[in-house]
């Protein structure tokens, strides 16, 4: 650790700390050189380099120097301010100076990790340090505004992630609003038969939790509803929820299904969403027997009353509780919450996008989710695995990685398909005795008990062919292929192309971000990865937080994951939300705008700039004034002010000009 002597100068007394970050920075940046350079800058009293500035001894170093050298400004050159700005501000405050007398230079993410050449990295670090030093002298002491946090929480999405998060929060005494866009909660998990690797029945473990949600005094459940608008900020979100008309008054319906039986359609006629069209439903229907809430709904796209206006409305007549209401409209509900858990899940990959596998072309080709419904005892076939033509398959091919690990569709691994393919292989073999062929690229079974499950399948005599299937086709080479679907694949373990005739093909479709992830992301002001998965604040250290404080992520909306991981993450998101709410207040970043009324000409230019209506015109004083409680700190008004009367704390014109001068001053 190098220490350089004090450079006595003016009233501003700056301490500069160059972090090695182990070898993360020191491996690329000549930290001793940058330290020496920093010591030569005007106002710098102490400049040091140290292995890990964020460690306790690193922070102690700053505090000690504040005491010993009377420092009143601190610069730390280390990682991104998004990573450790809060840490060092706290260190400065504990050392006895205002935490905003601090500036950070990002020489890790922006320098050492992205620069090949050592000399160039050192030079760039010097420039960034010079900029920080130049700027910090002009920093002002600021106070954080404390704002009380609203005690309620919104959970968006009623799959297993949202259910678990809502129950955890509700059990801790929080009032929770759970909003689900489908008519029932349960999500994808409600469609599964068994769960891997334990093969416990999905319904047996999920439906009790669904009922708990319904019964919990602290949970307000709105199904068939969507979040329409979100405004506000951490601790103080205003949310508008749109409840879509189900044409059934929820409080009156007891789920007796009398209306369904009475419907003028004697048989189900329309593709049943819950069973992926493998069964038919009527226009008035219960999504599935354990639907929660146990309330029917009417689909206006297929209901005769809505389509023709000429229906005898047998359903309405059959309802003893007069629950059918054809005049229902969208209903908007406003709620105020302190935190939001986004648990909007995934959508399965559309298998028709891989035409060579024949989905939608050959009736014998199914997606894995359709097969989940076929093996499910409460599914369309009562758990009998029969093909669309009624035959029981004698040979079944399961093609892995459909829409995953594929440069033409999705490059990422969907993480769950190997395991659910094994599960389906086991279930189909158990029920039908069919020969099962798995076509896989790699078997990926990391997880507790997962590899053991794979071993068990190997022993059960399921066939594993290592190679990506090329196509599913019906052209034949030999008489025993006649009438079958042929899977062509290169078996890379024997080095030959194989043709496997089967009766049923199961496409193990990957997980994709929801189709409307882009809109949902904008609604909650969070970010997406390229693939549409919501972006966590930090991949390791803040996996359930987002870049918008107060908005947390749970489940597959953040990336493909299995049920155990989803539940764990939902618990984490709930805990983070709880920590925020139990604290009772948030401290806002004091980067709000303000108006120097002496300079303000009253031109009102700034007022039109503000998207939050935070600026108002004070008629008698003929000046603009910022309401700091409404200001979010973007600075757009500041840039627009023609007389530099509008300024932004932490980003004043002078501070930015100083930073520009500094970044260009190095030689």
């Amino acid at each position, binding site marked *: 650790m190098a220490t350089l002597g004090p450079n006595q100068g003016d009233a501003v007394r700056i301490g500069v700390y160059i972090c090695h970050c182990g070898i993360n920075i020191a491996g690329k940046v000549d930290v001793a050189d940058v330290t020496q350079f920093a010591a030569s800058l005007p106002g710098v009293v102490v400049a040091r380099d140290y292995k890990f500035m964020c460690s306790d001894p690193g922070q102690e170093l700053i505090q000690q120097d504040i005491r010993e050298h009377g420092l009143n400004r601190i610069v730390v050159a280390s990682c991104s301010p998004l990573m450790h700005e809060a840490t060092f501000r706290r260190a400065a405050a504990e050392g006895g100076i205002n935490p905003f007398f601090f500036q950070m230079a990002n020489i890790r993410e922006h320098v050492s990790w992205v620069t090949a050449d050592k000399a160039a990295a050192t030079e760039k670090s010097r420039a960034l340090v010079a900029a920080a030093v130049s700027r910090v002298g002009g920093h002002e002491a600021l106070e954080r505004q404390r704002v009380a946090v609203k005690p309620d929480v919104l959970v968006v999405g009623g799959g297993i992630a949202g259910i678990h998060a809502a129950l955890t929060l509700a059990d801790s005494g929080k009032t929770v609003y759970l909003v689900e866009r489908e008519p029932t909660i349960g999500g994808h998990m409600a469609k599964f038969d068994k769960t891997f690797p334990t093969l416990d029945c999905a319904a047996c473990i999920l439906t009790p939790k669904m009922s708990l949600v319904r019964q919990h005094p602290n949970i307000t459940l709105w199904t068939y509803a969507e979040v329409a608008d979100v405004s506000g900020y951490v601790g103080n979100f205003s949310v508008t929820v749109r409840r879509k008309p189900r044409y059934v008054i929820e409080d009156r319906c007891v789920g007796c299904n009398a209306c369904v039986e009475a419907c003028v359609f004697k048989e189900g006629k329309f593709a049943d969403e819950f069973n992926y069209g493998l069964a038919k439903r009527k226009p008035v229907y219960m999504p599935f027997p354990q639907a929660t809430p146990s309330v029917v709904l009417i689909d206006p796209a297929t209901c005769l009353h809505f389509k023709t206006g000429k229906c005898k409305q047998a359903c309405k007549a059959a309802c003893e509780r007069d629950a059918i209401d054809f005049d229902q409209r969208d209903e908007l509900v406003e709620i105020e919450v302190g935190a939001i858990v986004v648990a909007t899940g995934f959508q399965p990959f559309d298998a028709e996008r891989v*035409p*060579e596998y*024949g989905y939608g*072309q050959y009736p014998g080709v199914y997606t894995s989710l359709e097969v989940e419904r076929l093996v499910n005892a409460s599914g369309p076939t009562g758990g009998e695995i029969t093909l669309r033509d009624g035959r029981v398959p004698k040979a079944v091919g399961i093609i892995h990685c459909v829409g995953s690990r594929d440069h033409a569709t999705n490059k990422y691994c969907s993480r769950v398909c190997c395991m659910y393919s094994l599960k389906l292989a086991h279930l189909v073999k158990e029920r039908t005795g069919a020969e099962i062929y798995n076509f896989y690229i790699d078997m990926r079974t990391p997880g507790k008990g997962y590899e053991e499950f794979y071993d068990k399948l190997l022993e059960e005599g399921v066939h594993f062919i290592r190679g990506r299937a090329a*196509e599913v*086709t*019906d*052209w034949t*080479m030999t008489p025993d292929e006649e009438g079958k679907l042929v899977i062509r694949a290169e078996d890379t373990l024997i080095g030959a192309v194989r043709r496997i005739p089967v009766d049923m093909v199961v496409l193990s479709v990957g997980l994709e971000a929801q189709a409307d992830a882009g809109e949902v992301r904008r609604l909650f002001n969070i970010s997406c990865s390229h693939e549409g998965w919501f972006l966590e604040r930090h991949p390791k250290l803040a996996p359930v937080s987002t870049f918008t404080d107060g908005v947390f992520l749970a489940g597959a909306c953040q990336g493909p994951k299995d049920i155990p991981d989803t539940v764990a993450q939902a618990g984490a998101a709930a805990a983070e939300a709880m920590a925020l709410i139990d604290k009772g207040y948030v401290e806002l970043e004091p980067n709000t705008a303000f108006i120097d009324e002496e300079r303000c000409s009253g031109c009102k230019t700034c007022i039109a700039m503000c998207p939050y209506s935070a600026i108002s015109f004070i008629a008698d004083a003929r000046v603009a004034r910022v309401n700091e409680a409404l200001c979010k700190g973007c600075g757009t008004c500041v840039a627009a002010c023609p007389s530099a009367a509008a300024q932004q704390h932490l980003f004043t014109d002078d501070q930015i000009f100083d930073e520009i001068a500094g970044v260009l001053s190095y030689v």
Partner: protein
Amino acid sequence: MTYLYYPGCSLKGTGRGYEESLLAVFDALQLPWAEVKDWNCCGATAYMAVDEVKAFTLAARNLAIAREQGGETAQVIAPCSACYLVLCKAQHVIHDAPEIGARITDALGAAQLTYGPRVQVRHPLDVLINDVGTERLAAAATAPLRGRRVACYYGCQMVRPYATFDDQYAPTSMDRVLRAMGAETVDWPLKTRCCGGTLTGTIEDVGLRLNYILLREAKKRGADAIATACPLCQFNLECYQDKISAVYGASRLPVLYFSQFMGMALGLSEARLGIQRNFVPLAAAV
């Protein structure tokens, strides 16, 4: 706008029937065309394997002279699948591999030629589907191909890797064109399966087997003829039928260019369509 017709070697040789019928169809549909003046070999796939830069320069020269002839947005029609692929690939390389692209444009510059990035390479099926449209085609079909069941065979190079106007795996443009002409097209999964390319000349038994599969499956699905858009596919599928029959049993099926079928529907004479050049007479299956 005049379409600039780039014949390549095949349409002046083994694929004469393709040239005759396609140009007759263009005339009948009043699509103005002119042959690219002083065109040269596209280089096909063979040259690419020897020297990429020279091969693409050779191909790009055709695009540069097409630009001189037809202007910045000239549209080059490449009926042969290999030509179509190579010309597309040359464009792709010039755009996406700037270093190679610079060498190609430099080489063209040495011959006082300028590569024009806006020159378009198009397949005749693209023109028929997107510029003419099936409605106009159907209206022009004075002698619709009623009762004819055709298996449309696209081969590989037309849609792979550049699926610019049709699906890479299950293309439909030829089916739509011939259906507009009144024919019935059979649904089969072998539309883009390999015809063997040059294998019939090198590893004959493999080449014959591949073509046998195509002929047999087309027949099995009720086709009375195969329509192709590639001179090499047509050659492989038609010329080896005697040998295929000797190995695998009777496998005779007429193989025509889609443009020959179109010409028939448009009421053009067989002679104008080069149908007399085909080895397997169409009548055999009807």
